[in-house]
């Protein structure tokens, strides 16, 4: 016990000192409590009477610790700057319910903050502090463990992965009527190394087959790696930079080993952000190859005439949902729209959109936290209204997690809409 503080509480305080970056300190000191963030958060909009959802309120839970322990203002006039500490494990559990259960780290408040306060960045840091002392939702803990120990977030063994790819190769040969059609594994010097989300292997390989069809049609020189193929990263969700760096490095190392020219990341928002944008920082390394989203790859194939598509094969009106990680954190907003317009009969915009779009409400690892599901679905009302207003039959998104988040709320609010990804629409529109 330190100053009457529990072992874990003291650890959290100590660790905070090691984790504060200049950007975080800037964010923790810049808030002027103007309230712009309040109007931008889907949790607040769906729970107007509950101040505990307000981004500034959530931020204060973390800010008070910073002020008390690491900022001179908290030492000189602690009451004025609302400095405070944590003492018990129960308080840490409460903090867990805020940083995991009341924020999806979607960064909509961030892009709307006139002071540039990046709540999601220090909310993620707070998650990391709690994980450091073993306090996190059970689902997040389980998945992070699988990613540490087995090398992918769903514990898929190497032989099962390879057998699944071989099975999809057989399907490709059958559908293309070409016994020589291949999904190469561990091919050296390939132009593209294609990385995926484990759910594609474990639960729904249709996206692997559709991507293979597109690569086949484009006569691409590509390969899938036998290891380091999981481009998802729970380090982004649990705030553990070490996990983030280890997972991203596995992917990078394999591309290096195969001497691949380019790493292509299948449609996954957090995977794209982690592998393309954050991974080198977490892993404290550089990467010598280009990394791109498969959305950009597919668009290039059409523009360069490598594949031909017929948009009448996808009839009716489709709308597009921007994944938070893709749009707000990586600026991937125009390419998916351009691609979608090329492969469907009618593309109808959803409002607000791009960096202002609302989260699917399952972001930040929320789909792995069953304990917060009722609150999550209640807050999804905002997204449900946004979807319904488009009057389309299908919502398209470039993120596996958004697919599940959207499907969940569509079921809950009984909306007559389907969810799909660009890879399926492009494959379906292919003219061979």
């Amino acid at each position, binding site marked *: 016990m330190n100053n009457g503080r529990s072992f874990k509480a003291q650890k959290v305080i100590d660790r905070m000192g090691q984790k504060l970056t200049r950007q975080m300190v800037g964010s923790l000191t810049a808030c002027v409590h103007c309230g712009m963030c309040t109007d931008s958060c889907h949790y607040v909009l769906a729970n107007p009477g509950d101040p505990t959802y307000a981004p500034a309120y959530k931020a204060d839970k973390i800010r008070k610790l910073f002020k008390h322990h690491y900022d001179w203002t908290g030492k000189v006039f602690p009451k004025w700057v609302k400095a405070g500490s944590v003492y018990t494990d129960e308080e840490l559990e409460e903090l867990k319910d805020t940083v995991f259960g009341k924020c999806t780290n979607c960064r909509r408040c961030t892009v709307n903050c006139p002071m540039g306060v990046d709540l999601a960045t220090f909310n993620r840091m707070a998650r990391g502090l709690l994980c450091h002392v073993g306090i996190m939702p059970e*689902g997040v803990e389980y998945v992070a463990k699988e990613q540490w120990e087995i090398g992918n977030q769903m514990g898929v063994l190497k032989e099962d992965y390879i*057998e699944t790819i071989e099975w999809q190769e057989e399907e490709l040969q059958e559908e293309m009527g070409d016994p020589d059609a291949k999904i190469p594994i561990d091919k050296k010097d390939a132009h593209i190394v294609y990385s995926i989300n484990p759910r594609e292997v474990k*639960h729904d*390989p249709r996206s692997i087959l559709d991507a293979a069809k597109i690569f086949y049609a484009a006569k691409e020189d590509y390969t899938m790696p036998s290891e380091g193929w999981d481009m998802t990263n729970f380090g982004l969700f649990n705030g553990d930079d070490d996990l983030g760096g280890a997972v991203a490095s596995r992917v990078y190392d394999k591309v290096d080993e195969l001497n691949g020219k380019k790493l292509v990341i299948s449609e996954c928002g957090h995977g794209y952000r982690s592998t393309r944008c954050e991974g080198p920082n977490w892993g404290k390394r550089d990467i010598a190859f280009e990394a791109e989203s498969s959305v950009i790859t597919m668009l290039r194939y059409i523009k360069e005439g490598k594949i031909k598509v017929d948009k009448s094969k996808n009839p009716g009106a489709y709308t597009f949902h921007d994944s938070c990680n893709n749009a707000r954190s990586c600026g991937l907003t125009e390419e998916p729209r351009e691609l979608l317009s090329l492969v469907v009969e009618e593309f109808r915009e959803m409002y607000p959109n791009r960096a202002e779009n609302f989260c699917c409400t399952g972001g930040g690892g929320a789909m792995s936290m*069953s*304990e917060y599901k009722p609150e999550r679905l209640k807050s999804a009302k905002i997204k449900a209204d946004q979807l319904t207003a488009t009057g389309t039959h299908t919502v398209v998104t470039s993120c596996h*997690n958004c697919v*599940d988040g959207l499907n969940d709320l569509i079921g809950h609010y009984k909306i007559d809409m389907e969810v799909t990804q660009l890879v399926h629409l492009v494959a379906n529109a292919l003219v061979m």
Partner: protein
Amino acid sequence: MATLDFEGTSYEVDEDGYLIDWQQWNEGLAGAMAKEDGLELGEAHWEVIKFLRDYFEKYQIAPMIKILTKELKKKYGKEKGNTKYLYELYPAGPAKQACRYAGLPKPTGCV
């Protein structure tokens, strides 16, 4: 913890509706869960549920879709041993929907 009431018994389920104790499962419960989703379980649905139960009893883990399709193909032929067929039967996906009806735990990770 949430509960699911069926024929006078209260079953513990997680917030996603998955049974906490897979051994409490019975066929009526699967039917009740499906009914809530507006789905009537037919012979074809039961083939999948029964396989999932048997597999889980043996290995204490839900099968990958590769294994599920392979085994269904062996038992019931090619037209039933493929991904498309499984998604037609269970639109929310065999992992999320069929596993829940079969009393298996919620799949982990980004699903």
